[in-house]
């Protein structure tokens, strides 16, 4: 270090492949930044961790003050969440205990609370609804958005700017403002509480996002690639399919995640426009709060299971996502 201070440059070198040439101050700053980011990440993770822990706590541990960090994990919360149970008493309970070996994992856990599993709960259906509605609307809005974005990016469309603004404007009204008229329309059209209705609604809502995002990505792809394919003997659609699509993969991945997250998390529309048949998970979790005694572990288990699909998708597409998010900044 001493040698460095005598001969080194006056301005600190902040980036170097040689560790010994990095100025101590620069190294300290780098560490300080890393620590700061770590602290922020920890603060951000507290609710998630609390939720994750609560999901595996027993009834008694959930309400313990101060909250227990070390406890015996149990799947009670998940059993409460995912099953319909009935209370057993007296001889029936004895009988059930005698045959406990025949029960599955959930059955045995329920039995410890003196309950019998009658079947899956509503929440399983809600989660399934969420999957269908969010997945369906995401696929449709990304596919439609891709075609629209390609057209906006490549062709001379009369009134292009106005159209693009119009598409964006569909997103300007907050959900609460439009739910009532939508509710009335949906009821008239028989779309209330249907999967189709919710898929349509989320698709329309997401289209503005997908068109704008994807147009940005497609604008970045030089036209020459398609033109080369056109003179190489391919039709416009083939060129789109064989050349533009692979090039736009990162953009498509990023757009898919964004619109999936919106459709998956959406609460206000789902609360107002579904009741039983097509109800999605977010309003279902919220209504759990109001039912008799509050089963915190069940709610935590619900939010945890609700979180997992989005985490998985984001994780699978993370490489594309990262490149997609920084796409506009880097020219290849």
């Amino acid at each position, binding site marked *: 270090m001493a040698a460095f201070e005598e001969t080194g440059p006056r301005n600190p070198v902040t980036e170097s492949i040689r560790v010994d040439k990095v100025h101590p101050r620069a190294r300290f700053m780098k560490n300080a930044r890393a620590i700061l980011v770590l602290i922020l990440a920890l603060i951000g993770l507290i609710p998630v961790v609390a939720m994750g822990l609560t999901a595996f706590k027993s009834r008694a541990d959930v309400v313990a003050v101060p909250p227990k960090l070390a406890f015996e994990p149990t799947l009670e919360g998940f059993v409460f969440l995912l099953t319909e149970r009935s209370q057993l008493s007296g001889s029936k309970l004895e009988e059930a205990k005698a045959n406990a070996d025949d029960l599955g994992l959930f059955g045995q856990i329920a039995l410890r609370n003196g309950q019998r599993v009658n079947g899956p709960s509503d929440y399983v259906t809600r989660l399934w609804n969420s999957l269908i509605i969010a997945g369906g609307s995401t696929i449709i809005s990304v596919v439609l958005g891709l075609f629209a974005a390609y057209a906006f990016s490549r062709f001379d469309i009369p009134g292009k700017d106005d159209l693009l603004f119009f598409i964006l404007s569909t997103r300007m009204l907050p959900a609460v403002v439009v739910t009532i008229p939508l509710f009335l329309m949906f009821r008239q059209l028989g779309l209330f509480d249907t999967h189709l209705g919710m898929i349509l609604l989320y698709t329309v809502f997401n289209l503005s996002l997908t068109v704008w995002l994807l147009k940005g990505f497609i604008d970045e792809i*030089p036209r020459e*690639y398609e033109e080369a394919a056109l003179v190489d003997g391919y039709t416009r659609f083939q060129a789109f399919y064989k050349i533009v699509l692979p090039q736009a993969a990162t953009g498509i991945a990023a757009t898919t995640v964004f619109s999936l997250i919106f459709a998956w998390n959406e609460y206000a529309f789902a609360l107002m426009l579904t009741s039983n048949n097509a109800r999605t998970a977010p309003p279902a979790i919220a209504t759990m709060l109001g039912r008799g005694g509050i089963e915190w572990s069940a709610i935590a288990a619900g939010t945890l299971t609700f979180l997992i699909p989005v985490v998985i998708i984001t994780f699978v597409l993370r490489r594309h996502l990262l490149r997609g998010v920084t796409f506009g900044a880097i020219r290849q």
Partner: protein
Amino acid sequence: MATIKLRQVEKRFGEFQAVKPMDLTIDSGEFVVFLGPSGCGKTTTLRMISGLESVSTGDIFLDDRKVTWLRPSDRDIAFVFQFFALYPHMTAQQNIAFPLQAEGESKDEIDRRVKEVVDLLQIGHLLNFRPGKLSGGDKQRVALARALVRRPAAFLMDEPLGALDADFRESMRAEIKQLHLNLNATTVYVTHDQIEAMAMSDRIVVMSNAEVQQVGTPAQVYYDPANLFVARFIGSPGMNLMASQYGNGIVRLPGANQYVVSPDWRMALGEGLDSDDVIIGFRPEAAHIKPDGNLVGEVYASELYGAYTMLHVELDGNEIVHIRSDRQTRYPIGSKVRFDLDPEMVRFFNPKTEMAIN
């Protein structure tokens, strides 16, 4: 190989006229270069031939087959782009095979034909790389291979060397020319680099302001420019041009200098001029410095180009002309030089029409 015919081909973008109606016939096997400053319409014309751009009016024929409204894929042409336009997600091999797959060739046939062009261009070592890993010159070789592999009726090249380094450009120039000689393929080549145009072409189409200025061999556009634009644009520096007066076989330059017109030219000048005004033009190498020369000027600047010296000579009347002298003799700035003009290489232009007189 095909002939390409343009008949009154015009391109408008709204009010803007990108290419004024033009006629051109490119013979089979010919190497034609579209040369002009940027924005002159040369690339638009090329794109119209390819079908990537539609024509506003007029017709395009490939071998008497009218292709004006055919899709690019149905025209049987190949296009080489300035920035190569190699598909980034495919290897060089896949890039070259791509046009053949469109034709639905069998795998064996594709492999055979890819190997053929790969051998021709000697790019076998590049086949497994993606374009991102290739140097500019290698990218362009792969792009050429992709164009060649289909054996199209014509090659269209849009500044294919524009994105390459200077030293590379020179060797690629020779490669492309060599390739053309081997294949005898009709080629249309767009560039703004006149050295490329002079070195490679059979004929040059000089364009400016959406219009064809002159069509001719490199020698023709250099020695016999059709108008003032071509005279100025071709050559570096361009032709020396001076507004002068003509009368009785004598051109009076600004100031006291005079040039006696050779007898062959007198008739033409008499017919071609509608007043005394004339523009006299000569290339730097048309001036010969000698002690008893008729024209006189003062050295304003002197640039040694290695093989020769380019003198900037200020004539009487503040006109500066470029004169090429040998590389040995030094002409100090401010010294007087006398020179004569080679009568074979002096050209005259009508200042009103800006057209050459001949």
